[in-house]
């Protein structure tokens, strides 16, 4: 979730500080003495890259408390990507700077340092790590790669980190700081693989109801089979749909914003067909076993006492319908709901009922067709817009188009919050 500039800056600073503190501490500890400048540079890049790889693993841990500390999963994943790139570049420069160091001694030395056949297995471990990291990172930029294949290639990165740490361990032996880095890396990898991907840290639920909202979208109600997650409207959970009597789930964890939270622990999820797994889920039936992790996110959780303007685009309606279902509005709330066709607008009837019965709630339902929304016109319909707190949930182009108009209308940037679920 993105908050106003002040909050955003503080959260970025926290995540940046947590990302940099370990590499800086490790480089400070390992800084070499009495070596040539290029060899010193090679050692510094190796340690900084190794520590950044460990940070990179810590940033991929899907744990609600850690995610809250990092300002949410979204910034954590952003820094996971950035730290991975930085680590790869640093580690790539490690053999190159060593080769430069060799060049100053004699040109053939540089080649001896880079040629794999002139090395032995401790160094091959390092080269193997670099190749795996390069391959794994290259696939992270392939946005159109199907999720399953992308995830499979991502394992190459984890393997690259393991080989990289093995390379350092073989060369250094039992150095306490290296052992600490290895333990941190194994804990992060283990947590992610066992607790998150295999679902050991998840809670069991069962699908108790499935309703067809609009074409290409269902709403599933999930009842806890044991302890219920403490979810609030605006948050999202990671969900893996398992098997039922006539249904075989994909078993992969995908993020879904809750569309309803009941006091008895049942939660509802609006699931739109966006990929192979969510398309398959459209055929789901009651009785299907489900595993849930979370909750994550703070959208709609830190609201000011100001009147509210909510702007939803398409499936971005889910956090707002969850808030409306949870309790009647106590503050004046205007919802601008944008959709391409009325036939695709989920919860439209229910929202209209709320608008008719709740004096604090005003609905502007707008069918945009294929055209972008006319935000200047829409925002004119909100009285005293500058006094409002604005919450936006929808596709990135919609959010990006709206933000400048809110700025021109005098809305305090600190009072603008938006949610985008574009991580994998």
């Amino acid at each position, binding site marked *: 979730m993105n908050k106003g500039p002040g909050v955003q800056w503080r959260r970025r600073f926290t995540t940046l500080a*947590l990302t940099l503190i370990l590499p800086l*501490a490790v480089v400070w500890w*390992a800084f070499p003495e009495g070596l040539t400048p290029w060899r010193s540079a090679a050692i510094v890049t190796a340690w900084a890259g190794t520590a950044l790889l460990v940070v990179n693993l810590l940033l991929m841990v899907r744990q609600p*408390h850690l995610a809250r*500390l990092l300002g949410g999963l979204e910034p954590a994943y952003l820094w996971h990507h950035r730290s991975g790139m930085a680590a790869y570049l640093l580690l790539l420069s490690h053999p190159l700077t060593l080769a430069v160091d060799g060049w100053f001694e004699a040109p053939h030395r540089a080649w001896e340092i880079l040629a794999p056949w002139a090395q032995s297995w401790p160094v091959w471990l390092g080269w193997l790590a670099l190749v795996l990291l390069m391959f794994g990172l290259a696939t992270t930029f392939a946005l159109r790669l199907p999720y399953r294949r992308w995830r499979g290639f991502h394992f190459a990165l984890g393997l690259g980190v393991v080989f990289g740490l093995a390379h350092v361990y073989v060369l250094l032996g039992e150095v306490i700081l290296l052992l600490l880095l290895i333990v941190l890396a194994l804990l992060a990898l283990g947590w992610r693989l066992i607790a998150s991907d295999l679902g050991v840290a998840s809670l069991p639920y069962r699908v108790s109801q499935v309703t067809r909202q609009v074409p290409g979208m269902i709403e599933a109600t999930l009842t806890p089979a044991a302890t219920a997650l403490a979810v609030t409207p605006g948050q999202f959970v990671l969900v893996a749909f398992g098997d039922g009597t006539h249904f075989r789930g994909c078993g992969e964890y995908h993020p879904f914003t809750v569309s309803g939270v009941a006091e008895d622990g049942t939660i509802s999820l609006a699931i739109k067909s966006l990929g192979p797994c969510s398309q398959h889920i459209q055929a789901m039936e009651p009785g299907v076993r489900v595993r849930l992790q979370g909750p994550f996110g703070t959208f709609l959780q830190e609201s000011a006492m100001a009147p509210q303007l909510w702007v939803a685009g398409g499936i971005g309606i889910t956090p707002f319908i969850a808030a409306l279902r949870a309790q009647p509005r106590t503050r004046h709330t205007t919802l601008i709901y944008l959709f391409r066709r009325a036939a695709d607008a989920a919860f439209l009837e229910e929202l209209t009922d709320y608008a008719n019965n709740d004096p604090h709630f005003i609905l502007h339902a707008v069918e945009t067709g294929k055209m972008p929304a006319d935000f200047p016109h829409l925002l004119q319909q909100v009285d005293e817009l500058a006094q409002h707190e604005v919450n936006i949930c929808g596709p990135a182009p919609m959010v990006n188009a709206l933000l400048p108009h809110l700025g021109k209308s005098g809305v305090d940037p600190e009072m603008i919050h938006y949610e985008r679920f574009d991580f994998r």
Partner: protein
Amino acid sequence: MPSSIWKSRVGGWMLLLVLVALPGTGAAGPWHAAEQNTSGWYYMTPDERIEHQRRMRGFKTYEECKSYQTEQHAKMARRALKEGVVLQPRPDSGCEQLRQRGRFE
């Protein structure tokens, strides 16, 4: 302020303190083999230098280190002699440096 946010902030600061204190837990970073502490450094291939450094770091006792070093010095002396150079091992050798760092039992 919600207690969960407060706890997260306290947790964050504690993590920062631990990480900042980390470098103080070791006497120093890893020892590095280099020209200054390795007799015959220029007569070793890059791979031999890596292996030499790896072995030196792995010794548990000063005696093991000196035993290997004597053998290594003799090997390098033979290589140097082929090129008409007589090597003079320096007193501040790798084993001495590692002993000063308290790396031996």
